[in-house]
């Protein structure tokens, strides 16, 4: 194509217009795509990082503490055969992490009644959690990581703080005696001060020996993969627990020991769902705008084509008069526009890739580029495809 580059060089503003138009369309599409990706990333991050808890509750979902959770339910979360029968196919452990549990048993210390409370972590007891009202003063060498172990120590109320160890006697099916080293003292306003805090393992051992079984007062866990919550409920959760029913109507279960589901499993995913829904909505907005922009690329191409062919009317007529066929005239115009569009798209992709750093949406951009070129082609065909007299009118 003779003098294609020469003519483009000598018409910088018009070329710039084409480049900018192409770059703007590409930039808008890329930008909107980046918005979509950003939403995806945010949604992934929310799924990955926002902790979603589940807890065993009463049927109405209004109590998750002070329950009497039997060993079989505890074992769903721990998979320890001592607590109850194991569940090889429907084990919860593949879906959850950070199990937090509390168990308690009545005991005698020097003939006075106390409650022995076993915890998997400090937060398992509301009163020991931050702001709960009780604080622990640890003896040397101990801190709150004590609860995650299995040591047979205990945290005692102020009245027992002078002791080095306490001997607890638990009368159940069998009478069990255990000696617990005092490793801390708790203080708190308005406390009843007859609770001894130990590790979960230690109290469970005592319970198992005394009662040949354990119960838990509260049991909760965090989901390890928030995207698999529905799968968890379908495959495991719903087999052992009822869904939370605000009316509290007992749901028939009809297995060996139980007429009704004794407990519900509450999944606290409202914040996750509402946050994700908001981000999903934004993502769809970006997606729809991106698609609209891609469709509009056709319109922009057409408008640009009309503009440019209008401005080059005389030139195109002259080319035809000098013997170029109409298809060659259109081909020259399109070659120029294709070059400029590619430049524009390339520029936009390069700049935005450097700025945003995500891989461009090649398919969308290709479709938009094609749409813009097609729009331009339609305008060019309109301009050049006229009958000869009309085409050469501008020159004659």
């Amino acid at each position, binding site marked *: 194509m003779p003098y294609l580059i020469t003519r483009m060089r000598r018409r910088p503003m018009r070329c710039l*217009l084409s480049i900018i138009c192409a770059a*703007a*369309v590409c*930039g*808008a599409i890329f*930008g*909107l795509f980046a*918005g979509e990706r950003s939403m995806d*990333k*945010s949604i992934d*991050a929310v799924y990955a*990082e*926002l902790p979603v808890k589940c*807890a065993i*509750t009463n049927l109405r979902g*209004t*109590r*998750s*503490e*002070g329950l*009497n959770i*039997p060993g079989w339910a505890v074992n769903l979360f721990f998979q320890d055969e001592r607590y109850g029968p194991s569940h090889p196919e429907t084990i919860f452990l593949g879906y959850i992490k950070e199990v937090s549990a*509390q168990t308690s048993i*009545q005991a005698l210390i020097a003939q006075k009644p106390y*409650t022995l409370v076993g915890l998997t972590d400090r937060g398992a007891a509301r*009163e020991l959690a*931050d702001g*709960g*009202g009780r604080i622990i*003063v640890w003896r040397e060498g101990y801190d709150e990581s004590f609860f995650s172990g299995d040591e047979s120590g205990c945290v005692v109320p102020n009245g027992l703080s002078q002791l080095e160890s306490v001997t607890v006697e638990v009368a159940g099916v069998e*009478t069990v005696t255990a000696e617990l080293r005092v490793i801390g003292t708790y*203080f708190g*306003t308005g406390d009843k001060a*007859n609770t001894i805090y130990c590790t979960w393992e230690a109290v469970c051992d005592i319970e198992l020996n005394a009662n040949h079984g354990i119960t838990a*007062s509260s049991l909760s866990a965090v989901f390890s993969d928030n995207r698999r919550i529905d799968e968890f409920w379908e495959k495991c959760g719903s087999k052992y627990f009822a869904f939370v029913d*605000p*009316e509290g109507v*007992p749901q028939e279960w009809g297995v060996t*020991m*139980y007429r009704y589901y*004794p407990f519900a499993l509450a999944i606290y995913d409202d*914040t996750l769902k509402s*946050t994700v829904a*908001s*981000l999903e*909505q*934004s993502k*769809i*907005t*970006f997606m*729809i*705008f991106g698609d*609209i922009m891609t469709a*509009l690329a056709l*319109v*922009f191409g057409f*408008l*640009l084509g009309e*503009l440019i062919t209008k401005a080059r009317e005389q030139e195109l007529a002259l080319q035809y008069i000098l013997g170029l066929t109409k298809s060659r005239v259109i081909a020259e115009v399109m070659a120029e526009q294709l070059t400029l569009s590619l430049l524009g798209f390339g520029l936009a992709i390069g700049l935005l890739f450097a700025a*945003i750093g995500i891989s461009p949406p090649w398919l969308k951009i290709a479709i938009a580029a094609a749409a813009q070129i097609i729009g331009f082609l339609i305008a060019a065909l309109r301009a050049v495809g006229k009958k000869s007299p009309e085409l050469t009118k501008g020159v004659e």
Partner: protein
Amino acid sequence: MKSFHQLMRTPLRSLLGLLLIAASCAMLCLGVGQYEAEVEARDGLEGRFTTVAVPTNKYMIEYVYDADGHVIGVSYYSSQPFEIDAFIRSIPESYPQLEAKEASHGLISASCPKLQPINVAALSENLRLSGEGDTMTLPSDQPYTEAMLEVEIEKIGKPHRDEYLSENENSGVEIELEGKVLSVIALESGYRDPTGSRVRLTARFANEESFYALGLEKGSRCLAFGMDYTDDELELRRRIAKSEFADIADIYDDIDLSDIHMFSAEERRKADRLNPGLNIVAEYRYSDMYAESLSKADLDMIGRVSLTVVNDPLILRSAVDADTVTERIDGKRVEVTAEKYRAKYSMPALVKLDGSAEEYLRSEAGVEWRKWQEICDIDYHAVPVIATPNIKAVAQFAAEEAEITEGRGFEKEEYSQGAKICVISDTLAQRSSLNVGDKLKLSFYELDESFAARTGSTYLRTANVAAAYYSPLRGFAAEEEFEIVGLYRQKNEWSDGTYAISPNTVFIPEGSVACEEYTSNSGIFSSMTIKNGSADELEGILREKGYEGLFVVYDQGYSTVKAELESFFGVSRSTLLGCAAIWLVLTAAFTILFPLNKRVDAERMLSLGAPGRDAVRHILLSGLGITVPGTVIGTAMAFFLSGGLIERLGVAAGVGIRLSVPPRTIVLIAVCQLAALALLILLAAWTVSKKARNIRRKKR
């Protein structure tokens, strides 16, 4: 020159111009529209999280050390140390980047006949609170445990005194009576009807004489009023249900107390060996594996209710013999005579009935009893009301222990306007058959600190506050109608943690009622909201000041997703810029094609001798003739695209999209577009008029 006519003669060209303007207008609207949508989404997201710092009162205790430096105890301050308090007050001003706002919540009591509060003592639920032994702690039984019964006396015990009082203390005598409930005059509706049940009355009288003066004997009928009614059999059933949780759907139907195995002598001896001192005489076996041991005292609880009656208010002051007592009136200590004190603060206790209870209550002698029957009714429908400046700043809501599950919370302006709206628990709503939208006429009353018997522990708690007892001496302070706008649910309704609230608690916006409120700088009464994402910064400040652990901060997980939320906010800006760039291109294209082109026409007109104003008018009319309809079409396109189309596409995609770009925004954009284009057209016209002036000057 007929400008519009000219436009019609080149229809395709004019259409092109229209398209250009419409496309540029639509592009600008879409760009701004998506930005507004993102801003709205951002505000919604931000609004979903509220970061609340709740005081832990860590610094209200002081450790006590021994000679070796070991902690041997603590001592408690009644309030925060002054410097800590001052620091907390100074946070909003000293650290403006935290955008801290203090939230102080106040407590009032209110009664409404429509409300049916939950009396935890009457709940037939297996409740185990704080794991402390077998006895229930009942945080919210006040003020629902008042009762007035008609009783037939079957047995009168011997009077006895409290041996542990000092010499100058006298709390009267205590006499145990046993009888049968003949009828119920006043009892909270949650309890089972005790008519026909046995009753254990504990009568606390100033002296034996005053008791015997009643003339009660075996077979006598009497009216009894007390403030600590207990359903003993329910307590026993609840204890059994604790162990037999698995299969209990109904604590009455599923526990058959007629099926109790009484121990033989051998079994009793074995039980004594296993549990010395507990006097186990029977067991209730509810499965092959499990049985609940029962003592003599436990068996006595079957079919029995209990009530304490107090006939002299000075009994509660252990000052029965005193001539004068000190009263607290409006915070001041005032000496009054014992007679005056009795006259002011007496409540009914026991009275012998000669006729029927109804007759007595209708009689003049029964006016006091009638009055207290009405007071009982007020108390049975009373709830604690928390007036809050920000419901999300209430610790339970902030910690996601409670959430609004139906309706809504309060809007910003509703707090400042003191709107007459409220949020109640769905448990209270269920029990009272109420829904969102229903109206409640709340009669507010204040605590009467001087009426000792009716002070209770409400206002000494920082959690699980209950309504105060209604005091006839103070009456109602205000009566207002409130609309229920939301229902909340709790994860642990009867928890007794530091910030716990009972499901009887009603929330109203601060300032919606003018009443004396009780508040404090700790517990459920005090919290502080800070800007989302600044929890770490606050903790850093506390560490720096040496006040680590002063607050516990709840942010519903915002800090873990903060970075991702912030990156999402920046994208819409870039998109807005892209759309603006396209708008510029299209507008430039229009300018080249039309106003500048018309300038050529206008100059030709001038060269043919037409007046300058004709040429200028031609440019203006031609330009506006395309710009105005094009903008209208573009605005319509934007309305359609940003509303209907997107919603339909969203529904098709399975997601409900609400891209609600406010119509005024679209109109504003359209007006700006029109103004910009008009400016360009005017510029073209101005160059022509300048040329016309030059021509005229040359002619002269």
